Structure formats: C-alpha cells, structure tokens
C-alpha cells in the first residue's frame, strides 16, 4: 500500500513539472512584431505587405477610383453619365450625394488608407535593419510613394477642396508623422490643414523620386512618383510644376501609349502605358472595378454602374472610346469594357493622363514644354481613331479627360479643382446645383474615428 502511494506521488510530481513547460506556445500563422521588425527580411516583407494593403478592394483595388465617378455624376436619370443600379446602399449614398457618417464602406477605405500610412512609416523607421544602402534607398522611396498616395486620396475625399492661389487652412486629415508601435497610448489627434497634408504628400513624392530607380519591376519607380506628383500639382493648380513633372515622365520614363485604346486595359502584367498599376492575381488582391463595372460573366455583379446616353453623347464620331463598352445580355445594361478581367491589374496611372496634364498645363500657361497642347491632345485622340482637333480650349481638354479617363477615378477631382458645379436637378435645368466645395461632396469622417478620436473635428453637415 505504501509503495502504491509513493509511486502515485512520484508520477504526480514528475507530470506536473513537465506540464508547465507546455504553456510556452507560439502562434503558427502570425509572428511577433518584435521578430518581424528585427530582421531585414521582416522589414522587406512589411513593404511588400503595404502594397498588398493597397491592393485591397476598398483601396486601390478599385473603390477609391469608383467613388470619384459616383460623386462626380449628376445622379439624375435624365442627365447622368453613369447610372448607379447597385444594391449597396453605402455606394448609393455617394451617387445621391447624401452620405452618412456610419457609412461602413467609407469607413473601410479610411481605415485601409491609414493602415498603408502606418505600414509605410514602419518601413521607413526600421530601415536600419536593411544592410545594403542602395536597397535602403529604394525601400524608403517606395514607402514614401505609398504613403503620399494614401494621404492624397484621404485629403481629396475627406476634406474641402484645395483652392489654388490661397492659404488652404481648412481642415485636411490627421497626419501621422511617425509609425505607431504602442497602441496603448492615447492616439487622439486633430486633423491638420489641407496645406500641411499637401506638404507631406509633395515632400514624400520628391523624396521618392530622388531615391527610386528608373526601373523597379511592378513596384513604384522614379516615374511613378513623378507622375503622381504631376497629378498632385494639377490638383493644386500649380500648372508649372504639373507640366514639368508630366513632361519628365513622358520624356524620360520610357513608357509609351499602347497602340490601341483597348490595349491599355485588362492585363495581368504592366504594359508600356502603365506608369503604375496595382497587381491583382487569383491569389492576391481584389479587382473591385470589375466587381462594380462588369457583368456577372466577367466576374462582376452584373453592372452596378452603367453607361447612359449622356456620356456617349459627349463623343464625336468616330471614336473607339465611345464604343469601348458592351451590353450585359443578362440585364441589358451597357457596361464599360475597361474592366472585364476579374484577375487583371488595376491601372492607377496611365501615360495618357500625363499627356492630358502636360497639355492642360501648357495651354493654361501659354507654353509648349515638350510639345504643343494641340499635338498632345491629338496624340490621344488619334490613338482612339477620333478626328483630330484643329483648335483647343481648356474646356476641350477637360472634356477630353472625361472621354479618355472616364470611370478611372478622375471625375469629382476635376470638378473640384476647376470649380464646376454638379446639377442634380431632375430635369438638368440648373435648379439644384451642388457647388464644387459643397458639404455634400465631402466624405464624412467615419463615425468610428469620431467615437475613438477625442480630438478630431467632423466635416460640416455630418452628425456624430
């Protein structure tokens, strides 16, 4: 009997001692941040992961582009270029210019863009783990590019427009100058001014331009940064800088227009015209342009955003771009052919845009840097088999932008920088105009941000 008890006691004790070691378990699909950020491989992967964040549907996988056209069209059946027929109420709010601060789609994009910013900051601050100084430079350049890209869309959607030729002290968005590692701290912060945000964007892109190589595979290169810079300067009405930046890309990047308009879209790898594109594969990324613009057969929802006659009537005949669309046989909707490959890349900056920027800036400045505005525009038109223009006004160029870049995420931004109004009246009689700086064209700061950030101010016209 005593022996029995002794044996039991021994088993008991030994078992205990061995069990407590079993409590040291590590996650198998995750990695401690301290481990990730302590190695070159880890930091390099965080940069690639930042592109992956950008490739989400609610960021540059498509929705950031979609919003610009939803907000830009009149949304009135008799006049609208594009008609929203989708069932997502949150997107319909944009189409109707009646957004609410609890709009979860807006919240998703806001949140995603700031994840890109924090990831970019993390790469920049941990760059010392990368041994090769050349590689360090490139990575800093890419991180700055991605961060500026995110801030640019944040400030364009969530703040009152930048008005050229004056101090832009209106509220922009929250600037996070440093990466955040301690989320236990109070992270409340007020929005900086629009001027301050633009400064961060431009400084970042200039740094990116300096650091990045001319060729960088499908990642951002020198000219991706410059092209984005051209877009930023145009938005500011800084035509000289916009012209020079666009000209630099056209002259030096080695990119060229594709032979046919149709060739500019629906491909899996970057083509000559792609200055920067978001890479989508079957495994990674989500092409949300296809989701909302394509038929079910092409991987979309049947055509949530359809082309109306008002848009087609803007084209002269002939024009390849006027017929670059198809009818969804399931429901009779007319859909753009720009987004028909579910696993195709999302072109973010096409070279064609640079010609349009250079032409507009040259025309407004009365210069002919690179080429004359008329030649630039006719280059674009000829590629689409449209008749050449003989004379050119700024309005012609703005129209050309709609013809060339329609449904690619430019409309509202062009309306705002050129101070146009949107006529949302039922008959298009001008009885109900939304001015370029209307409260209704600015996204609300998401309610979740309002609730958790005690220092932030909401945009006018939105509740909390």
């Amino acid at each position: 009997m005593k022996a029995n008890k002794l044996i039991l006691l021994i088993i008991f004790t030994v078992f205990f001692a061995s069990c407590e070691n079993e409590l040291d378990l590590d996650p198998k699909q995750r990695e401690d941040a301290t481990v990730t950020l302590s190695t070159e491989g880890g930091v390099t992967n965080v940069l690639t992961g930042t592109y992956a964040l950008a490739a989400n549907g609610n960021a540059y996988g498509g929705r950031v582009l979609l919003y610009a056209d939803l907000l830009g069209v009149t949304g009135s059946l008799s006049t609208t270029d594009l008609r929203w027929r989708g069932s997502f109420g949150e997107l319909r709010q944009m189409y109707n210019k009646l957004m609410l601060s609890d709009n979860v789609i807006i919240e998703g994009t806001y949140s995603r863009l700031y994840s890109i910013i924090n990831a970019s900051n993390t790469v920049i601050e941990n760059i010392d783990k990368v041994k090769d100084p050349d590689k360090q430079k490139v990575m800093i350049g890419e991180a700055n590019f991605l961060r500026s890209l995110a801030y640019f869309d944040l400030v364009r959607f969530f703040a009152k427009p930048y008005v050229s030729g004056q101090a832009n002290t209106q509220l922009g968005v929250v600037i996070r100058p440093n990466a955040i590692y301690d989320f236990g701290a109070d992270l409340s912060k007020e929005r900086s001014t629009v001027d301050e945000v633009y400064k961060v964007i431009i400084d970042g892109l200039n740094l990116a331009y300096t650091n990045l190589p001319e060729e960088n595979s499908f990642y951002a290169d020198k000219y991706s940064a410059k092209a984005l810079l051209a877009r930023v300067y145009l938005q500011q009405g800084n035509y000289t800088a916009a012209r020079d930046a666009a000209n630099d890309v056209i002259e030096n990047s080695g990119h060229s227009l594709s032979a046919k308009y149709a060739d500019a879209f629906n491909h899996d790898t970057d083509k000559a015209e792609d200055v920067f594109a978001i890479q989508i594969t079957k495994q990674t990324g989500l092409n949300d342009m296809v989701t909302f613009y394509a038929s079910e057969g092409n991987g979309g929802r049947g055509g949530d955003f359809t082309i109306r006659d008002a848009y087609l009537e803007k084209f002269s005949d002939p024009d390849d771009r006027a017929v670059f669309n198809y009818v969804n046989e399931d429901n009779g909707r007319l859909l753009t052919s720009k987004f028909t490959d579910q696993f195709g890349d999302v072109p973010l900056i096409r070279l064609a845009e640079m010609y349009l920027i250079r032409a507009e800036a040259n025309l407004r400045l009365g210069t002919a840097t690179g080429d004359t505005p008329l030649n630039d525009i006719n280059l674009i038109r000829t590629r689409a088999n449209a008749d050449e223009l003989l004379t050119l006004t700024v309005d012609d160029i703005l129209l050309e932008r709609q013809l060339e870049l329609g449904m690619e995420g430019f409309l509202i931004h062009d309306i705002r920088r050129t101070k146009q109004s949107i006529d949302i009246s039922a008959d298009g009689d001008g009885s109900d105009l939304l001015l370029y700086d209307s409260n209704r064209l600015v996204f609300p700061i998401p309610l979740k941000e309002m609730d958790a950030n005690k220092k932030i101010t909401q945009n006018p016209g939105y509740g909390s």
Partner: protein
Amino acid sequence: MKINLKHFLWLLLVLSVQIAVAQGGTISGTVTDNKGVPIPGVNIVLKGTSVSTQTDFDGNFKIQANTGDVLVASYVSFATVEVKASNAMTIKMVETQNELEAVMVVGYGTQSKKNLTDNIARVTAKDIQQIPVSNVQNALVGKLAGVQITQTNGKVEGGINIRVRGAASISAGTQPLYVLDGIPLINDNESSNGAPTNPLLTLSTNEIESIDVLKDASSAAIYGARGANGVVLITTKKGKEGKGNFSLNFSQGVSEPTHKRKWLNAKQYVELLQEAGRNVDDLESVEDELEYLSQGTDWRNGEVDTDWQDIAFRTGYTTDADFSASGGDDKTKYFFSGAYNNTTGIIDSNDLERITARSNLSHKVTDRFTAGINFGFSRSVIHRVQDDNSFSTPLQSVAQAPISQARLEDGTPNPNTEYVNYLLAKDNTSWKTIMRRLTGKIFGELKLAKGLKFNSDFSYDLLMQTEDYWQGKNAPFMATDGAVFATSVNTENYVFSNYFTYDHTFAEKHVLNAVAGMEFNKYNRRYQDVNSIYFPNDDFHTIDGGAEVNEGHGNETDYAFVSQFGRLNYSYAGKYLFKASVRRDGSSRFGKNERFGIFPAFSAGWVISQEEFLKDNNILSYLKVKASWGKLGNAEIGNFASRQLYRPNPYNLKSGLTFDQAGNDNLTWEKSTQTDLGVEVGFLNKITFEADYYQKDTDGLLFQVPLPLSSGATYINKNIGKIRSSGFEFTLNTKNIETENFKWNTSFNLTTNESVVKSLPNNNTDIILDFGINRVGENISSFYLVEYAGVDPANGDALFVKNTVNADGSLDKSTTNDYSEAKRIISGNPFPTLMSGLTNTMTYKGFDFTFTFQGEWGASIYNSAGQYMSTAADYFDNQTADQLNRWQNPGDITDVPQARFGASNGTQASTRYLDKSDFIRLRNLTFGYSLPSQAVKKMQLSSLRVYFTAVNLLTFTNYEGYDPEARRDDSRASGAAVIGEDFYSAPPAKTIAIGVNINF
C-alpha cells in the same frame, strides 16, 4: 428513464459502499413503491452502524441484522423510511419529488442537494427527452432559473447563446464551459459561411442522464480560469445491475415558422413606388425600373404577383428514432445507445441529419479497483444556406419586387430581379457541412484505504468538420464556370485528470469530504481549405473537377492549461455546512508575466430545520440559508490575444507581412468575483421554495478597445473595465395534487438580471460599436441610436429628437427634420431583465401532460434591415405592409413618413427600427398515454407510451419583427456576433410531433 436514473445513482452508491461488518442474523426483504412495483438500488442501512446494502433489480435485499433492529431505507426521490426489521419484510417507499435528495454533479465528484451550499440548476432526462428540437440546449429553455438560452435564429444548425446569470463579459467569450462526463467539450464555431453553427448539436438528448449548471462561484471555482461564465456539466447514462432494459423511441413531426411578416402585394407595391417617384418628381426613373423588374409583364395591372416570402419558407419535418440498452451484474455495467435525427428546416434548403451512438462500460476488476470507458461518436450532415447578410440567402428574397417573376416559363430562376434571385442559389449551389465528433474517456478508480480513493481519467474529444460549397455555372455572380470551396478542420482536446477523494465521518457528526488533484489539458486545431474554379460542367462537385486550384489556406493553433485543484466539504450533524475550494490555473493564453492564477471560493450553509426547535415542525419541513463567495476567471480571450503580431499578406505572389494585432504584454484572464446569498424552504413536504441573490463583478474586462482608425489599427485588447451582473433567482416547486390516480406538480422559476458597466478604459470613455454602446452606469451593450420622433403632419418629413445637450446639461427634446442635427442616445437593452419559466406536470392514470411556458421581458431588437424594408419605398425593395400608412396629405397623423424615392426620408438608423421584444411563449407541451401494464405485458413489453409533443406552439408578443428569437447571424466586420439585431433573420420553428416509446 426513471429506471436509468435509479441505476445510475445506485452505481454511485455502490462505489462508495463500505464493507459490511459481519454481525448476527440475516434479514431479507423487498422494497417496493406504493403501487407494489419493486425498486432496485435502494440503500438500506442498519441504523447507527455502517452496515448497509442495496436492493437488487427485483427490489430484494439481504442485510446482516436482527429482528427488531431499525433499518433505514433511502433512495433518491423517495422519502426515507425507518422500519423495524423482520424477516421477509416488505418496505414501502413513497415517491416524493423531493429535490433535496437529488444527487448533484459538482465536478470531480457528486453531492446531495441537501448538503449543498452551491447554486446549481439541474435538469434530468425526463425533463428534456422527446422534445422535438435538434439540439440539447434548446430543450433546456425555460427550465433553469438564471440561465438564458437563445438560439440565434431558426436555421437548424443555428448558433446558441447561453448566458448564466447575465453576462460576465462584453468582449471575451460569454459561453459557459461544457463538460461531458469530465471532458471539457470543444465548443468552437467552425462555420466558414459567416453564420455560426452549434458544435454541440452533435449531442443527442437520448444519451443524457442529467445536466447540471454550476452558476455561482462556490460551485464553479473548481473550474478556475474557465468558470466565470458558468459550467454546464453533462452526465451521460450508465448501466445498472439487473435484467437488461431495452428502450425504443420513435417520433415524427412537422414544423412551420412561428410567425411570418406581411409584405406588399404587386398592386400595393406599384402604387407606393409610383407615389414615391412622383413625390420627388422622378416618376420616370421609378417606372423605368418597374418596366425592367416586370420583364415585359403587365406590372400596371398586377399580372405577376409573387409572394417571395413563401419561397423562403417551407414546411419542415422532424424524425427522431433512438434506442438504448442497459444493464449489468455486480461487476460489469453497460449502457449502449443510438439515435437518429432528421430535421428538414422551415427555411428552404436547410436541413440536418444526425446519427449518434454511445457506449458506457464499467467493470469492477477487483474489490478495490474499477475501470471503465465512456465512448460516444456522432455524425451530423447539415445542408446550409448563406448567412443573413448575403443576397442569396432565402430570407433576403423578401426584398424582391412582387412584380418580378420568381421563375421563368421554362422553370429556370428569373435572373432579372432587383437583387440576385435566391432561386439561382437554390438551383445552382449547395453548402454541405459534416461534423463528426468522437468523445471518449477511460477511467480508473482505486480504493487506497477506507474512505480514500484515487481517480485517474484520460479523456479525448475530437471534432472533425468538413464543408463543401459548390457553385455551378449558373450560380449568382459566377464568372469561372463553377467553383468549389472545401474546408477541413480537426480540433482535438485531451485532458488528463488525477485526483484523490477522501470521505470520512468522525464521531457520527463530523462529515468530511476532500478532493485534491491536478489536470493537464491540451488543445489543438488544424484547419485547411482549398478553392478550385473552371469546371467542365455542373456534375463535378469536388475540388478535382476544377481546372485551376486558385486559393488555399492552412493554419494551426493550440493552447494548454495546467491546473491543480482542491476542495473540502465539511458538515456538522447535517446542520452546519462548510465548503472551500481552490484551483490554480496556468495557461499558454496569458502573457508571460500573468501566466498563473489562483481561484478560491468559500461557502457555508445552515440547515435550520435540523435544529431542535424546528425539527418536528410539520409545516416548515425544511429551511436552509446559505452564502458563498469566490473568484473565477474567463480565459476565453483568444489564443494569442496579448501579442503584437504580423500576418502574411502577399502581393503579386511575393511574400509580404502586414500588421495584424496590437499587443498588450499584461493581458490576462478576466476576473469575476461572485457572491451568492440563498435560502431554501420546504413546507409540508409539498412546497419547496428557493431564493437567491447573486452579484457577479467582473474586473479586468477584456476589451477590443476601438482605436482611432487613423492610427492604422482598429482595436487593442485590454484588461480594463468592470461590469456587475446582479439579480434574484426564485424557484418554486409545488405538488398541487397528489392522489392515487392524479398528480399535478408545478415548477416555476423567475430570474432578474441587470448587467451594468461600472468602469471602462481611457477614463471611462464610451465604447461604441455599430448601434451599441458601453457606457458607465448603463446596461452593457445598450442600444445607441438617434431618437425617431415620427412624422411632421404638415409636410410628411421624418422627424428626429435633437437630444443635443443644453447649457444647463439637460437634453434638447425639440425635433428636427435634419438627421445630422440629432444626437444618439441610449435607447434600449439587448438583454432581458426578467426571465421566467413555468412547467406543469400532470398525470392521471396512464395519461401524462406537461407544458412549459417561457417569458422574457426588458430586451429590444434593432431591425437593421428596416432601412431597406420599411422605408415607404425609398428604393425598389418590397416593403413591410405597415408602410401603407405613409403620410399623404397635410394633417395626416402617422409614424410613416411621406414616400420619397431615393430621398432617405427617415430611413437613417434610428429608434424607428428598434422594437421591444418582450414575449411569453408556450415553449413545449407534451401529452402522453401509457398503456395499462396488463395490456403491455401481453405484448411482452414492460411499457408502451404514445405521445404528442409540441415546441413553440404559441407565442404572445407585441414585437413587430419575425420573432423575438430571430437575430442576425452573420459576423460582420468586427468578428463579433451582433447582439440584439435582426437582419432578414429567420424565426424559429413551431413543431408538433407524435411519437411512441417502448420498453422491453
């Protein structure tokens, strides 16, 4: 079933029997009930000695005693009798429903209720058997004081929420720990389609002997860091000595939804939409779309009038068949059972088919050593539909326009509907989930010395689930000629428990019971899925049929617990009861600095009725007061919630890493401290009444504290905040009538609960999640909405109460038609504050009749689909019929605003879509008839009973949605199930069934 209960208890008694000391003569006799039916397993003690025995299967016993000695015969649910011994004597025992004699399962042992200082609620087999529901938990509804059981909605596999004495947590797990025969059960929702499944639907009620819910700290502290949400102990049936018993049960039933909503017909729909279009000067857009929706049919004259709700629902069927065989001799006991359930759900394309089997065996190897095995397995095949937030789930069909045809002439689903036609999903997709569970325990018990024994249990639980989601070429949103998604997950849990038990009585009055032991528990979960696309045709439903395997995932996670525990019970003369227990738990889930926790509990009771001054009081037959205090933990915080983590996030097929979780090194379990004060009173041996007050304070609450989104992260896990759950529980059991032929018993319970937030992170900053808020001083997860103020009679505008704060701190109660001017306020509670259950049982000769009413008061439900379905035609969604009361002319008094197409007139989130969900429900009703025993004997059976039974037969409520128990089941972005929200959620089934129960 009663026989089985007796045998189980008898087995327990055998285990604790002490060797009789030889003494003079032998007395033999028989024990019967008052009808003369022998009772096996009765404990017979020679008074004042330790000489004892039990009756055998025929009720016979032999005991060493002399004529004239006093024998004490006792048996659970019978009154204890003392008789003078005589040879060939017959002892008659009178059945009582005396709850006090019940043996409660307490974790690592059992205890009789009369010595209990804990608060434990119990149901036994007879309370839950033959209720035609497909999961065990649903059979418990309304029968346990302090335990709220809610199935998410009416899907057959729907998730279950059990709240024991209100919530002990806001963000961490709130479900109790389930322990089956000592095995902590895997209770992970493994659904991939958004809506949770109930992993415990693998259990069948026919194998369950009893369910004990440990509610207070005193009882649950033995489960330490896992006990804060209560512990549900499930005990399976066991064999008993004697002639084998074979039991068969078969039943069949039909089901309907408890309630359907009323929708507009084609004529009303067209009228309302045209009006809405006209009111915004845009009739053209509206009619353009009506043309499209009607696809060439004459929508102006109601040519097509489709009732889409009818497409979503159907008549359900249930079939239950089960058998059990049990028996044994003095060494070996056995129990075998098998059960089959087939439930055709009330929702189209939703059904369940389950087989379960169990064998429980024990063998007395020597006088000192007993070993055994409990082993159960089950297989459940579930055909599922998409979650509530999916366009292709059946119930979202109600959004379709009644002027759209459901199917075309050729029978194929109409593809040109406003939203994707559910019938496309019905015809071209399938979701099959198979859950397989193996649960086994091998155990040994060694008697080391008098009163001292050692138990060693090794248990294993394996849940294996596969899911197969097939989409054919014509499935909604299909662009890859079909797709198949297949998942496989294996979750296993093994537990090794070793403990000593010591029982001793000193000087006849000091009764001591001590338990000490240790336990090691390891859990592992391994998951894989794969997706393939481009199929040759719709005949191929597996991954291999696809031309391209385009996506796959695999992951694994685990946790471990190492625990030591001890418990001491002491009672003096059956009057003064004391109990202390402690458990030390260590877990891999907690941060390194906070890895071990100690959970003590103490309780005491005073059985006043045992005192001299009350002992012979015939009116007050029992009186006990008791109190307990203890600490518990809630370790359901996720496996690696404390770590700051990165996750893989590749880009263009290049590896990448992305920030995944904000870390907190000090994260640990939530600590609950619970106090319980109770009294148990018995009158005239007919009425027992129990009242308890409980207060459960949870500190160090785990929170996913929302972060400013501009930080780049959405939340951080923190142990900050306190909540207090408190309330009263009352249980009243009465024997109203008790005659030879007619018996009528009533059991009534009532629970109040208030769960209030006491403190929160960041200096008590409100935590707002969607429509809910946690604010100090308010109910947890209160609704937080803009207050709807009805309609302006002058112009039909929707109005909202401003609720902005005035200079003097009061709220501005004036109204506005500008939604953005109105502030949100606390506007309701998603949890009931009062719950009640009432069960009546009547028997008259061979007839038996039982019914249970259940009621809940104080909760509200927010219909987040209201912004689509109740908007007076803001869009093309079909509308609830109440929208016909819209404002039309100046002066109209109504709460439905003017119909304005696309103008969001009152469609914003507000209390307009919040509704009180108080209800009373006839939860179940059973009427049975047992054939007279003579008739049955002729058929060579021992009993035959036919019965009619029903679930959810009647519901009384003013709630306007489908049903107070229909809540949305998709997990939305936050990952947490949404509390108190309805979103196209299915009502539960109303089922009636008839069955037959035969014993050989």
